[in-house]
């Protein structure tokens, strides 16, 4: 009788202990779902450079052009960056128009040099950022060269520059 009672006590004691042990050795876990929507992003920043600017001078030193061409006394410093592999950026320049709107210098006379390198005609959009540049901050110095024709009139002209961002389908 006594033994059976002791057994009962032991049994009850064990029953009370075991659940605690189970909880202390295990973990209860709950998951919270996380969703992040990252959208396509494009950063474009530019700054006009005067011919006294150090960056202009660094590019000018490398530039090779004919003696009768005109290097404009200002350039453009451009920073471009994107996270999207399907994005690319090009620079488009329109025909130059005189301030009195009577004269035009067509863009086939206009050339651009990137960082003092080879000259690109402004007839076509100039690629500045390609899909291979994804994630990279591209910094470029653009110099502008005019191939003057005898038929061109002296004067003041205005130009429109446009950064064209394209998505590759």
């Amino acid at each position, binding site marked *: *009788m006594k033994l059976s*009672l002791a057994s*009962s*006590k032991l049994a*009850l*004691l064990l*029953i*009370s202990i075991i*659940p*605690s*042990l189970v*909880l*202390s050795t295990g*973990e*209860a*876990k*709950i*998951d*919270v*779902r*996380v*969703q*992040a*929507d*990252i*959208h*396509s*992003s494009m*950063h474009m920043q530019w700054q006009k450079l005067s011919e006294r600017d150090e960056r202009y001078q660094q590019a000018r030193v490398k530039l090779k052009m004919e003696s009768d061409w005109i290097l404009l006394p200002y350039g453009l410093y451009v920073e471009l*960056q*994107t*996270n*999207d*592999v399907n994005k690319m950026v090009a620079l488009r320049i329109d025909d130059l128009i005189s301030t009195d709107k009577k004269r035009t210098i067509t863009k086939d006379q206009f050339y651009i040099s990137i960082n003092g390198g080879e000259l690109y005609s402004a007839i076509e959009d100039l690629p500045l950022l390609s899909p291979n540049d*994804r*994630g*990279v*901050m591209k910094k470029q110095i653009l110099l502008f060269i005019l191939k003057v024709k005898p038929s061109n009139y002296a004067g003041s002209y205005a130009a429109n520059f446009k950064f064209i961002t394209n998505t590759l389908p």
Partner: protein
Amino acid sequence: MTHKIKRLLFAVLVTIYSVNSYSTEAEQWQEAASIAVTAVVAPYTTVKLSTNEITFDVRGEPGEYYSNEEVEVTVGSNQSTWSVYVDASSLSTNNVEIAALPSSRLAYAVDNNKEYQSLDKKMLFLQGVAAQAPRPVKLRFRLTTTWQDAPGTYKGNITFAFLNNP
């Protein structure tokens, strides 16, 4: 008169008998055996989370973005001590060509604390004792993105683990 006395005597007798009965009953019962009684109070932990999903909307340039939702955690337990850990998985897209965002990009802050802790590993953020009244704790989450992160929908999990310490 006699009738009244008889009634009184009867009442006294009943009373005496009742008292005697009680003491007699008590005297009649002897302790034959004793049984130990143990009341088992099962251990429990209650956990409540205010939401089961948090979202980030990264529209601008890469940088730090805060989740649209906070997670309110309320824990109650009758255990001696308990702990709550938070852990994050990496965030990945369905496109195998797009690299996943490592868990180190996620960080959390508790209540009004301005400092965010990185979730690059499992982190203990809450502890309590038994008989402590449950108090909700708010967690805010932050995601850091870079220009190398391609556009897309990234998914993962933040796991809350509750541990009872004996």
